[in-house]
């Protein structure tokens, strides 16, 4: 906990605490039958880092879209620096210094950093010709001022995720933003990148900028913010000073009940089969996967996951985790090596055949892979098992509905409406659909990729419990997560992927964030068993 609330208010602009930078009061916003905001209120003082926390679907993003002029509230007031700006446009919001950094980057990959930054407000010479030199100069200047170091002439497509995010932040600053809203900025970053981001945000705050951080990672909230607004089900439930609260307290406010924050760590499950068959579970032998540019994205990886075991794979994103899971699931061709499920060679088998052999898969990209967003919850709950829900080619709708009702209640999917399109559900509930589908059926091996990404605390706890229960029932689970603590909390053994190889594999009991972190960024290299 650095950067306490003490620095609040002593801003460079000398705007003392009297006038809040943002004041939103009594905001109502509905989408059809769904009420995203119900009388929500938020107050952010200038020069503070304000954390807006809440479960997925609590209405945080909607609130910030209203602030940014992307949406108009049904009721309520929005004030920025004391001025009533309710229902303004995006252009007005930008002009007034609001800058929103979205969760999903909105950069043109084929343009350079500088070109992306000046897009829409290009400095021009002689009327129409873009002045690249001046643009690059401006970008460099801003870059050194803020500590967001990035070469202006690099192509966006060549940047890492963390770098791309820096560009996003630079972009809003470039347009003169003094109030920054960051929507889940750390979801895609590695621990070192997160630390860098914090440094930048603190520097901006000390410069007098106001920062709103949307997140549901409580450790981050506690580490970086000065004040916290907690939202639940579209309503503001609390506004607290960070120094006066605890993570457990925030979690309780978010979910509305007590939450255990450390998933039942390595408690020896009682139901664990005594002597698993040696060839049961998942096994990969000398696996090589070649990526689109002919590079080995998985380079000779061998491992096995036994029944009743969770093998956790950590690593900075883009080191082959995605490709490994896709290869195991049958979604990506294998160049060499073997994949065995319960001792049967599945290397050349289709997705459906692996499925039938007992492989379940929680994919990392739930919105593109895991769900068909236009389909109803009920129909999404049979994706991949549709053939078991049909007779002579016709879908048995009664059984689909029965299945949906059962899964909705046992996995607490909200709203509990089987005929709602999956698109209408919050991220956490979308993830629950996938978990319900993949874990609610017979399976022996589970590939769980980023199972809790972008999911709220309550759902994280629930999903973790599901994984542990499955382990207790003798399932073999391969867990890939960008969250080191998640990997450490759940796994029996931990491996770190670095550049397509396992840099290390060790029992989780012997691992720690520090040790794994070094393998993750490649400063320490080892050989996996």
């Amino acid at each position: 906990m650095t950067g306490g609330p003490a620095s609040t208010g002593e801003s460079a602009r000398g705007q003392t605490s009297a006038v809040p930078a943002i004041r939103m009061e009594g905001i109502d916003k509905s989408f059809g039958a769904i009420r995203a905001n119900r009388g929500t209120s938020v107050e952010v003082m200038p020069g503070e880092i304000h954390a807006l926390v809440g479960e997925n679907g609590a209405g945080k993003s909607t609130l910030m879209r209203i602030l940014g002029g992307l949406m108009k509230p049904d009721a309520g007031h929005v004030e920025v620096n004391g001025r009533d700006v309710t229902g303004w446009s995006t252009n007005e919001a930008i002009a007034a210094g609001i800058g929103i950094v979205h969760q999903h980057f909105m950069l043109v990959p084929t343009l350079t950093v500088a070109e992306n930054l000046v897009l829409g407000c290009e400095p021009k010479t002689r009327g129409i010709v873009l002045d690249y030199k001046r643009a690059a100069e401006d970008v460099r200047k801003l870059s050194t001022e803020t500590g967001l170091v990035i070469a202006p002439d690099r192509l966006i497509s060549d940047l890492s995720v963390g770098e791309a995010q820096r560009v996003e932040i630079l972009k809003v600053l470039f347009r003169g933003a003094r109030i920054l809203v960051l929507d889940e900025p750390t979801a895609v970053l590695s621990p070192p990148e997160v630390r860098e981001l914090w440094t930048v945000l603190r520097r901006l705050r000390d410069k007098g900028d106001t920062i709103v951080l949307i997140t549901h990672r409580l450790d981050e909230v506690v580490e970086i913010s000065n004040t916290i607004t907690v939202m639940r089900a579209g309503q503001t439930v609390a506004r607290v000073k960070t120094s006066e609260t605890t993570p457990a307290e925030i979690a309780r406010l978010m979910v509305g009940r007590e939450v255990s924050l450390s998933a039942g760590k390595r408690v020896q499950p009682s139901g664990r089969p005594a002597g698993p068959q040696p060839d049961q579970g998942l096994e990969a032998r000398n696996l090589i996967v070649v990526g689109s540019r002919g590079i080995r994205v998985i380079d000779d990886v061998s491992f096995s996951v036994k029944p009743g075991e969770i093998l956790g794979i950590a690593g900075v994103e883009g080191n082959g985790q995605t490709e490994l899971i896709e290869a195991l699931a049958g979604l990506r061709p294998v160049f060499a090596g073997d994949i065995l499920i319960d001792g049967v060679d599945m290397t050349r088998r289709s997705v459906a055949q692996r499925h039938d052999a007992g492989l379940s898969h929680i994919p990392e990209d739930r919105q593109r892979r895991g769900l068909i967003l236009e389909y109803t919850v009920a129909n999404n709950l049979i994706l991949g098992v549709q053939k078991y829900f049909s007779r002579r080619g016709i879908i048995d709708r009664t059984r689909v509905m029965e299945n949906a009702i059962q899964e909705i209640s046992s996995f607490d999917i909200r709203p509990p409406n089987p005929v709602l399109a999956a698109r209408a559900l919050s991220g956490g509930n979308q993830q629950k659909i996938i978990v319900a589908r993949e874990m609610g059926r017979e399976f022996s091996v589970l590939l769980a990729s980023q199972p809790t990404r972008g999911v709220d605390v309550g759902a994280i706890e629930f999903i973790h419990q599901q994984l542990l229960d499955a382990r207790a029932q003798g399932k073999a689970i391969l867990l890939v997560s960008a969250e080191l603590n998640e990997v450490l909390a759940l796994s029996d053994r931990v491996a770190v992927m670095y550049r397509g190889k396992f840099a290390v594999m060790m029992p989780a009991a012997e691992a720690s964030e520090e040790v794994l972190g070094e393998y993750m960024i490649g400063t320490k290299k080892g050989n996996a068993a």
Partner: protein
Amino acid sequence: MTEGVQPTFTAAPWRERAQEALIPPLVALLVALICGDLLILSYGQSPAAVYRLLLEGTWGNAYGFGQVLYKATTLAFTGLAVSFGLRAGLFNIGGESQLAAGGFGAALMGLALPVGTPLILALLVCMIAAGLAGGVVGAVPAYLKTRFGAHEVIVTIMLNFIVLALLNWFIAGHLHVPETLHTPEIHAGVLPRLADIDPRFHGSAANLALIVAVLVAFAVWFYLFRARGGYELRAVGLQPQAAEYGGISVGRVWMRALTFSGVIAGIGGINYVLGYKHYYEDGFASGAGFLGIAVALVGRNHPLGVLVAAFFFATLSQGGLAIHAFVPKQMMDVLQGVVILAVAMAVPEVRRILRGARGRSDA
């Protein structure tokens, strides 16, 4: 969000869903009508009088109505064909040649069958021939797409030229009745006309292919929304990556979707060949294949919508003939264009594509 956990079955309220489905096309229609008003006024005519004439010439009498039904039948087939492909995310521009091939297949079969073949059997065989011919034309781009990744739009467009030229060559060079560009009349498999059932339809080309169109529409609906194949087909169309993840073979679905799209368009050939002229005539399909794209778009890729849209476009076409004396027929072409544009702007799917993928909602 609701706090209770009791499962509820209501989707969005009915009224809202109906509004969402109907208002955009309605706006599009009104925009088109207003454009029509202005065009008619520019010719110094009274819009009310011209529209009245248009309605009288189409829905106002059995003959006109029959003509509308006849035109709607072909458009329903090509519209269904296009929408079936679109549901799988594939754009079949080959309706033109598939329809022609279907008609040709039906005519060949009708010529080959001996006189006195039982009607039902002859009809069935001719229809199968039509579907097969269309399906073969549809299968080519399907195969090239799944095997080599060739874009179906390019392939179907090019195939239009090839197939139409081939048919042309067959007809002009080999099968035509002298001094014409059509085959001899078929011996068997003639579909009864509506006029045979109700004499008031006398003279109109409407025939029982209409029933076939409705049946095909129902079959398409059932397949898309009730069968496992349809579940998989729509999944591929909506999110191919998710479909792949769900163990669905995307290539196989593409193959199926384009081939059957061709089959549907091909069966459309019976309307002209078995129902109307009883011979294959070069160029009979001209325009209907392309108009099918508009029909699918306006009908929002739903079989029922396609039927309605086909009826609507048929009315415009026949109505254009009825008001021909007072405004040029090009006015109807302009109106058609306006309707397509307006609907394209109003339909949410299209709007979404136009907007591009925006960030996902957290709300």
